[in-house]
């Protein structure tokens, strides 16, 4: 049995968000929400991360950064788009420098809506993302 679902380490990157979602992501790690209960550690390093929490609608300068970070994460990995911006581009989708949603750049597994996404949503999103690990790990093994 794989144990990734018991120890999902996350990486957070702000791909052009307004900051609102980012502080909520951070708030998740703090005492009141404490995602470490689920074994989550907020690592800063893609090489160690299992879950990629991405906020914001990705602008052109961020595109390569996001792709690269995604690439540097070892399999199995889950991408969670946090916030309306990361889901669709939100209010900024008409801005000239916004690609609109994280899924325009990398494959997204879970969408967490909200502006700003509530910590509860984020926890739910993470829990749902973690659930994906079992099959992901299995399919990886099968390869």
């Amino acid at each position, binding site marked *: 049995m794989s144990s990734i679902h018991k*120890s999902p380490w996350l990486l957070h990157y702000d791909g052009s968000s307004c900051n609102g979602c980012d502080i909520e992501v951070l708030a998740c790690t703090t*005492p009141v929400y404490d995602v*470490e209960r689920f*074994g989550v550690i907020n690592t800063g390093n893609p090489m160690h991360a299992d879950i990629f929490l991405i906020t914001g609608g990705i602008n052109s300068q961020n595109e390569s950064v996001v792709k690269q970070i995604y690439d540097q994460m070892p399999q199995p990995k889950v991408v969670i788009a946090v916030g309306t911006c990361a889901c669709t581009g939100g209010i900024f989708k008409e801005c000239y420098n916004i690609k609109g949603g994280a899924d325009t750049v990398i494959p997204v597994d879970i969408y967490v809506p909200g502006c700003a996404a509530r910590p509860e949503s984020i926890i739910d999103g993470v829990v749902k993302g973690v659930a994906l690990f079992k099959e992901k790990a299995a399919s990886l093994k099968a390869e």
Partner: protein
Amino acid sequence: MTVQIRVILAVCYIILAPIIIGLLDGCDRKISARMQGRKGPSVLQPFYDLKKLFEKEFLSANKMQLFMIRSYLCFIILAGILFFAGFDLLLVVFALSTSAMFLILASTATHSPFSSQGTHRELVQIMACEPMELLVPVGFYLATIPKTFNVSNIVRNSDYSNVIFLPGFFVGFVFILTIKFRKSPFDISTSHHAHQEVVKGVTAEMVGKEYGMVTLAEWYENAILYGIVALFFLNSNPLSIVGAIVAILCVWFLEILIDNTSARVKWQLMLKLAWGVTIIAAGMNLFLLEIIRG
């Protein structure tokens, strides 16, 4: 000590060290979380993490790294065996510094700004700790009669716990343990919890099983370090084992407490403090001990 006992002790070390240290680490995380007003992860979390690391896909920028890390792990275990089977303490310290070199080489095997910055900080850390590490065997050598570096003889030949003669050494050693355990305020080259300017420093480029091996090696190393703490208390009386365990737990708790009540300092200050404490605490102790024993 017979060969059989040595072998048994060594095997115990290999099997038990990761289990015990892993559990201590789990409790550490739980207690830290509680100190921060959080609920914290499960006590078994370190094992989940370790298992996960070994299951992850293996990425690397340089194949050399894996080989260096394996050598690092092997050398730490070798040092641990030497220690727990009761051989020469000074040689254990030497073996530990050799293993540290493999870690350094592993982290510079890639061309990464963070891991190489971390490496140099790691080197500074080694430099900060090494004098004290070398002094500890010297202290034991002077404290035991007849003088010896031999771990098993140190235990067998002492009628009292050596900490009585070596309070300064003990203080100095506990001080550098904070550095060795990579705890705040000295978690400068890599850190487990709070974020670092060098990201994960030495381990920044280590992925999956590599990182797992480094973690495991750290556990084995911590076992040796706790073993040395115990050595300050162990004597020919078997009851002293209880004292040693209490001492280990106290030191462990103290480290958690310090970790949670201090900011990360810069390496210059760390070097100054570590050397200062070494010279003042251990140096004075050494001087007095020489007068007594001279």
